[in-house]
């Protein structure tokens, strides 16, 4: 049964101030997202530091397509489909590694250069007089056309429709600048491994939560109360262990989260915590601040360090934290299953403490063994089940709705305003329907 064939069918799911539950539940919509939405938007693929040398590769699946990011001989980066031109075997089946100077298919040993061009075929004479050279199979591995490495963050767009990189992200790229500029030499490295969770909920639910400031008080009550109880009685100026420094602020009140402020950008991107955030209170380091000032000038250094947003969303797949230097990648697996990866970053030229903060935060908050995330995950899975109930087909996003918000492209609002989520869904409709027929 196909229910969502026309643009209007999709648009009807997202009203001004609420969304239909089908956007989370419906398998047909998930298939359409794979086909349209993720082809028309820019997805984060990987970080250039993961493929340091020629021949290094990173294998990632985006919207069901197996992709390979490969470091070229000339230092550039290419993204190929991980598919042999002969019969389709994946060229590599490890998550990452080095292929050396060329790819060799494990099945019949066709080989390819690092850019995917065909190199050699066994029994070559058998192809004489055939049409192989003139068809797709003779042309080697297929490279993606739309690939941008922005300050080492590599993004791809699968289809030809949809905006180019700059017009898609626009000023939202400031979040990546802020993160990279925390390095006096302007370089970050992925280190320390990735924490991978599979959550039985729709990917959009997870993404919305990244912008949800009203849940921490009630959702994380058990963790913050336990932390408070253990920390009670300590003098106000007692040095906090890093874990306490990171967990206690989750208990901040509604007023705190409201005042932290948020900003939306066109195409679904947003920054939460434009004034301050739960990360603003981390102990400062004089030497590091000095090194940053030397590198960027006093003014820019102050600007970088004062900005510690709660989350910056590069819609739809990336959520960044400037401090601690960490990010999450959202990878949808099915309508009701989402893979979340949490990566740590080493800031080159900065004290080791920053890297420790990054790893500690990811471990405390995003590990499958996190004490903070258990309650989030439980509630996402609860919602996924609860929404199957009848009698109310809609999910409310009314908080802070103002008809005047339409037509505004970039907008600053209070931190508890659900416009950050409305903004995501408006972008969802846009990119779902962009390449549909009518």
């Amino acid at each position, binding site marked *: 049964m196909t229910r969502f064939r026309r643009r209007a069918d999709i648009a009807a799911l997202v009203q001004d101030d609420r969304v239909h539950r089908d956007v989370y539940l419906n398998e047909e919509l998930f298939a359409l997202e794979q086909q349209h939405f993720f082809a028309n938007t820019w997805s984060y693929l990987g970080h250039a530091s993961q493929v340091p040398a020629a021949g290094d590769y990173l294998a990632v699946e985006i919207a069901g397509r197996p992709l390979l990011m490969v470091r070229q001989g000339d230092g550039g980066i290419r993204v190929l489909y991980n598919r042999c031109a002969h019969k389709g075997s994946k060229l590599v089946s490890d998550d990452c590694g080095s292929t050396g100077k060329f790819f060799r298919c494990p099945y019949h040993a066709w080989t390819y250069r690092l850019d995917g061009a065909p190199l050699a075929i066994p029994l070559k004479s058998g192809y004489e007089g055939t049409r192989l050279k003139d068809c797709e199979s003779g042309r080697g591995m297929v490279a993606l056309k739309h690939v941008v490495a922005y300050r080492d963050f590599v993004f791809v767009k699968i289809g030809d429709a949809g905006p180019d990189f700059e017009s898609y992200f626009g000023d939202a790229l400031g979040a990546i600048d802020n993160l990279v500029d925390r390095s006096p030499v302007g370089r970050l490295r992925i280190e320390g491994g990735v924490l991978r969770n599979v959550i039985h909920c729709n990917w959009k639910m997870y993404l919305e939560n990244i912008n949800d400031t009203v849940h921490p008080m009630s959702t994380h009550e058990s963790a913050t109360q336990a932390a408070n109880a253990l920390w009670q009685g300590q003098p106000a100026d007692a040095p906090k262990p890093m874990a306490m420094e990171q967990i206690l602020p989750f208990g901040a009140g509604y007023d705190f989260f409201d005042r932290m402020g948020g900003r939306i950008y066109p195409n679904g991107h947003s920054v939460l915590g434009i004034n301050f955030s739960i990360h603003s209170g981390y102990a400062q380091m004089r030497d590091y601040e000095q090194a940053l000032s030397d590198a960027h000038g006093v003014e820019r250094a102050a600007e970088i360090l004062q900005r510690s947003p709660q989350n910056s969303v590069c819609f739809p797949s990336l959520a960044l934290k400037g401090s601690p230097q960490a990010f999450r990648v959202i990878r949808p697996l099915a309508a009701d299953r989402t893979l979340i990866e949490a990566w740590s970053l080493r800031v080159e030229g900065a004290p080791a403490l920053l890297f420790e903060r990054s790893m500690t935060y990811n471990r405390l908050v995003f590990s499958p063994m996190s004490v903070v995330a*258990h309650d989030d995950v439980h509630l996402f899975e609860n919602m996924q089940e609860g929404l199957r109930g009848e009698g109310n087909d809609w999910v409310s996003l009314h908080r802070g709705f103002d008809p005047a918000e339409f037509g505004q492209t970039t907008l600053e609002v209070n931190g508890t305003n659900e416009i950050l989520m409305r903004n995501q869904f408006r972008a969802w409709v846009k990119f779902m329907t962009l390449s549909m027929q009518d």
Partner: protein
Amino acid sequence: MDAQTERRLFDFIAHEARLLDAQRFDEWLALFADNGRYWVPLRGGAQADDGSHNALADEDRLLLALRIERLKSPRAHSQHPPSSCQHILQQPALVHGDARTPHYELRTPFVYIEVRGERQLMLAGCYRHRLIDRPGGLRIELKRVDLLNPGATLPAIQLFP
């Protein structure tokens, strides 16, 4: 190693697992030395102890206490319904220690099962315990949990493998 000491060490490992299965977490925490550490490295047995790689959990007594306090809260939403667990241990092997030193190191292959509602999670791996013998009895300085698949995409693990 005399048989009596060996018996004592093996009993300690079994006792520790039984406390977890019975959810007697406060008593379990009391088995740790003041500088005790519970560590589930992200690369399992291949991981060096040099801080260069992250972990699924890396907790001192303060963080373990936090975990245990949280589990007691009626507002620990993820514990409605509650989780329960079962450790299945092989016979430990003593890898280090003799009668003259108060330090012992043991390896214990295990299977861990955690259930909650309709869901069941199974983990397998090997414990590496570093124990110290004190006048008050044996204490855990390090419980290292080397999972077979620590890098896999895992669902929530809520208790203590």
